[in-house]
């Protein structure tokens, strides 16, 4: 009853560079779902905090030029970008942003349950960009595009027709532009930095970005 090693194993190497979610893409692991859900809950609280903090700078920008308040929109798009960049599966961005929007609504904000409309549209914006790159690219460019698309979906899909229905078209476009910049920079680049920070901290070793970090620092 002995066992032996007969076949020499191939020279082992690490996988440097990009790591993708294990295919098939729609086969979520339990840990993917749990990570996205927990992330959503965390961002829900962050959203609610931003709901409170937002009012002061918003009042200042409104006094200068109302459409500039779009610059403050980026933080609400973070959940979708981070969820998408971290889990790297279809639906993860939408799910994370929706969980966050639900938690924000449950804690209670001036927007009530309409945060779910926003959350859904913002998540879809991120999904669209990740889908365009076939869930294969997750760098700075894609992250910024995702944040930007998230902002465009939110503004053109909802805010133009609800909060800012009385804006002139020129104002509407300026608002779209400022929100898009905020989405690309704060949610896009900021979200990417959050993902990298989590990976470096060793908090998401089971996720593709965590694996990239593990392989980069392999020993």
């Amino acid at each position: 009853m002995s066992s032996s090693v007969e076949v020499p194993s191939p020279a082992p190497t690490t996988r440097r560079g990009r790591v993708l979610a294990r295919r098939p893409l729609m086969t979520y692991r339990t840990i993917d779902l749990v990570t996205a859900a927990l992330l959503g809950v965390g961002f829900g609280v962050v959203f609610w905090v931003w709901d409170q903090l937002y009012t002061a700078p918003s009042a200042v920008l409104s006094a200068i030029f109302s459409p500039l308040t779009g610059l403050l929109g980026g933080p609400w798009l973070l959940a979708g970008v981070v969820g998408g960049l971290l889990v790297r599966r279809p639906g993860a961005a939408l799910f994370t942003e929706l969980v966050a929007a639900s938690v924000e609504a449950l804690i209670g904000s001036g927007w009530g349950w309409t945060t779910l409309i926003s959350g859904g549209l913002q998540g879809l914006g991120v999904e669209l960009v990740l889908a365009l790159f076939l869930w294969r690219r997750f760098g700075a460019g894609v992250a910024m595009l995702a944040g930007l698309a998230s902002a465009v979906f939110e503004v053109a899909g909802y805010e133009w027709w609800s909060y800012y229905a009385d804006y002139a078209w020129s104002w509407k476009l300026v608002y779209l532009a400022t929100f898009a910049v905020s989405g690309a920079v704060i949610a896009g680049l900021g979200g990417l930095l959050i993902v990298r920070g989590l990976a470096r901290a060793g908090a998401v070793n089971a996720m593709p970005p965590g694996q990239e970090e593990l392989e980069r620092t392999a020993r």
Partner: protein
Amino acid sequence: MPDARRTTGGRVDVRGLTWRPAGRRTPVLASLDLRIEPGERVLLAGPSGAGKSTLLRALAGLLLTAEVGDLSGTVSIDGAHPREHPGRVGLLLQDPTAATVANRVGRDVAFGLENTRVPRDRMPDLVRDALEAARFPYDEARSTQTLSGGEAQRLALAGALALQPRVLLLDEPTSMLDEQNAAAVRESVMSVVRRTGATLVVVEHRLDPWLEHVDRCIVLGADGAVRADGPPSRVLDAGLADDGIWVPGAAPPAPVAVDPALVRPRTALPTGDPVARVDSVAVRHHSLFGRAAVAVPALDGVSAAVEAGRGLALTGPSGAGKSTLLAVLAGLQDVSAGRAEVAPALAGRRGRELARLSSKELTRALAWVPQTPEHGLVRTVVLDELLATAVALGQPAAEARARAMGLLEALGMADLASARTHHLSGGEQRRLVVAASLVHGPSAVLLDEPTVGQDRRTWAAVMGVCGSAVAAGTGVAVATHDEDAACRVERAGSRVALLGGQVVAA
């Protein structure tokens, strides 16, 4: 006795199994071939990092579900992938609370049944039988929050048994338990195995207690291949002790030599002077609503002191109050009665009372290392972790750095200075947090179960650091149910044995 629950053991077949986890250049398991016959009882041994736990997780079909890496080769249980028939393999982990998923015992045991869509009307019988087979002492309505480690482990066993596994995998199931609880869990496991004929594979650092129960021992080498395989009496030789394995009968290893200059306290007290002392203290844990959470106080009328240049061993079974007393001595737990104070030389702006020292005053005087090493990690890079407290206290950087590097060297971790703390193995993390507690030169260090579940190498490293800290004039308190460690610490000072929150012998 007719027994409807009797299952037959499963055949385990492993062919060419290779697993390289992300972040390692070399595989943990390399082209492993293994066959375990139905009903065999196997003890799996090997040095830390040899891939014992990894192999168990592979047998349970769990690789790639939560960890990432490159996997090749095949694992089958009775010819099928382990995940094809959920519940065919039962896995018990080291931390019993990690397996608790519900707040009531009954629901907790039914969790696996729910997940495998067992018809609802069959569940009550299966749950009751599983609890009985695991010799769980309470009924299904019991809260899972109030269980001791050994009880929680038997609950986890019941959860696995409810699915009637053909293969039972145990990953250090008793290493966090005191001897009494460990024996109870072993008894439960063996009665189940005898009754069901399930195949058993056990991983445990301390081999002796399992030897009489197993008929085969497989030793994995550090290279991830099978090093020895056969009857325990033939396989276990003294040479394995050098690999860090706790071979039965082998004396504890010699502690690693550490230069006392590396762990010298910044405020040295005369040897034998109490650094921190408690007089007739009582601690009562309260629930959120202010009522006493449990009827019995965690500590009741306890007096003890950690003295400069001396050791203090705190012993007793689980729940005796060892960790609570350590936390009181560390100034982290306020007392409901009695006095807890530091030496006059270490008094803060608001006096000597431990609970009234500021964080910085407390940190300068005392260092505390929690039972789970990861809970003590505050930085992401090893060297930063070692320097964190010294930096926070504004101590000279060069000196702290020299001590940190010296300690890493002594503990065989010199090449890990820039490694990420959360990427280290359990043993490496343990050595790191113990070393990190001493870099800033506290007058006493308080360690909670620093050696439990560790191989001989980490044991020797931790005991070496403790010994040299004592020699350098630091007080060292160790709460433990590792008798070898307790004896060593006691020899350098004294022992306080606790039971039910009271001192039974000092």
